[in-house]
């Protein structure tokens, strides 16, 4: 940890705070296109914070993961999502199963829970980013909440990707990132998963004329 680390720590804290804010913004967002933009912004914040951590700590491999983030989450995935939306003619508004203010309140509870859960671990960490672990965890839980409360397929998938963002942020803040080969593997999985989902959306739409996953509740035990 070099002499300049207090400032880097502050910048990372700021980025972490923005990440949390973006998670809440996604939770409250009503329009799919804005949702994608928010996801893109989240990717950009993630990329920036990874780069700052890399610079502050001299962990060069983090530059590579920042690059992957930029490529994958700021450019490629939003592009694929935009294309999907256009090709599928998805309706622009997002429907929620629980109304948004209630969702937000649940979100605050989740954040408190995440902070408490992360507290003992972050005290053990020696990284300058340790206090952001709680935020990473909160972001994961908020994304999870978003997946639960949305009734359309596309927002659910964005929630899923956002959850991956949170996990990635957790990896950066707790341990300065995973080993390179693992990170590459994760990125590949995310990309392949997105492509497969793209195919899948078309199948669902073809079958049901809609991407409302409430159609997908027919299978029962008896």
């Amino acid at each position: 940890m070099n002499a300049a680390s207090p400032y880097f720590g502050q910048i990372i804290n700021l980025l972490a705070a923005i990440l949390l804010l973006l998670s809440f913004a996604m939770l409250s967002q009503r329009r799919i296109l804005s949702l994608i933009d928010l996801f893109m912004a989240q990717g950009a914040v993630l990329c920036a914070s990874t780069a700052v951590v890399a610079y502050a700590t001299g962990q060069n491999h983090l530059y590579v993961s920042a690059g992957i983030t930029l490529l994958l989450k700021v450019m490629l995935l939003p592009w694929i999502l935009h294309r999907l939306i256009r090709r599928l003619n998805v309706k622009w508004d997002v429907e929620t199963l629980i109304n948004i203010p209630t969702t937000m309140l649940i979100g605050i509870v989740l954040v408190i829970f995440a902070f408490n859960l992360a507290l003992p671990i972050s005290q053990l960490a020696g990284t300058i980013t340790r206090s952001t672990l709680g935020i990473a965890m909160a972001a994961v839980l908020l994304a999870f909440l978003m997946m639960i409360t949305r009734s359309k397929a596309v927002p659910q998938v964005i929630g899923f990707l956002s959850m991956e963002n949170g996990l990635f942020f957790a990896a950066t803040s707790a341990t300065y990132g995973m080993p390179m080969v693992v990170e590459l593997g994760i990125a590949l999985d995310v990309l392949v998963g997105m492509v497969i989902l793209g195919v899948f959306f078309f199948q669902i739409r073809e079958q049901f004329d809609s991407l409302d996953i409430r159609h997908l509740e027919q299978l029962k035990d008896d």
Partner: protein
Amino acid sequence: MNANLAAGILLQFLELIAALVLAPLLSGWVNQCRALLQNRSAPPLMLPYRQIAKLFEKEVVLAGNASSLFRAAPYIIFACMALASLIVPTLSTDLPFAAAADAIALVGIFALARVFIALAGMDVGTSFGSLGARREMLIGFLAEPALLMVFFTTSLISQSTSLAIIVETLGHREFAIYPSLAFAGVAFTMVSLAENARVPVDNPTTHLELTMIHEAMILEYSGRHLALIEWAASLKLYAYSCIGLALFFPWGIPQGVGIETLLIAMPALLFKLAVGGVILALIETLSAKMRIFRAPEFLGTAFLLAVLAMLVHLLLEAGK
């Protein structure tokens, strides 16, 4: 010591004068900026003064069933707002009155004024008055917790609820990035817009019956009562602006008492208020008035942000 106290009381007095004088000016300035931004020809800067003066000269017309409460309310509201602007440190943090009331009391003073204006709105028994009062209480009920949360966040940072100490700590610390303050700032802006009946929540210039909140309550007022209420409204805007400036841009508010510090503080305050007015006009121009049913959501978001600010402070900044 005595000389200091005397200077302090003088300064306090000066602050009151500044508030009473500057408040209508600020309203005029915001209106002017708004008109310019909307490509309209701007009203004169001094228009609020002239309006207040004109209203003072006019005769008061009271509804037949108006009670004494209706007549007393404008004075109470005006007194509350004047008191509020006394507590907020604008020209110096070394104010004799500041020890008497802290941030939470300030919220209480605002709440008192709100209760009276709502009661006055319902007093005459017109449908508009009750409608406006109900809406005002709804907004107040949602805005107050958010405002308190903002104050709590800053109090946590400075370990005190006294506004003067908060401003001193925030203004004289070494430079550090506080994400919590950024969140709290946004939340405070949203609360201020709602509390001062500005555009996304209410429109201060409208008389469109379905959407108005503040205007609906004061429809029955005339003459000097109306003048006081208008003046109080601009004082409220001034007080909120000064709180925002003191909490989030505290630079330039001196600690001591004296002519030379005043010479720095006064231009700094004027400059910050002018910039704040431009920003307010910008926000009002860029956003559209939302449906009244969306206001709870708007204020809910403000509350959320304020809570987040506090949480983020506890997680990221505590123990440093």
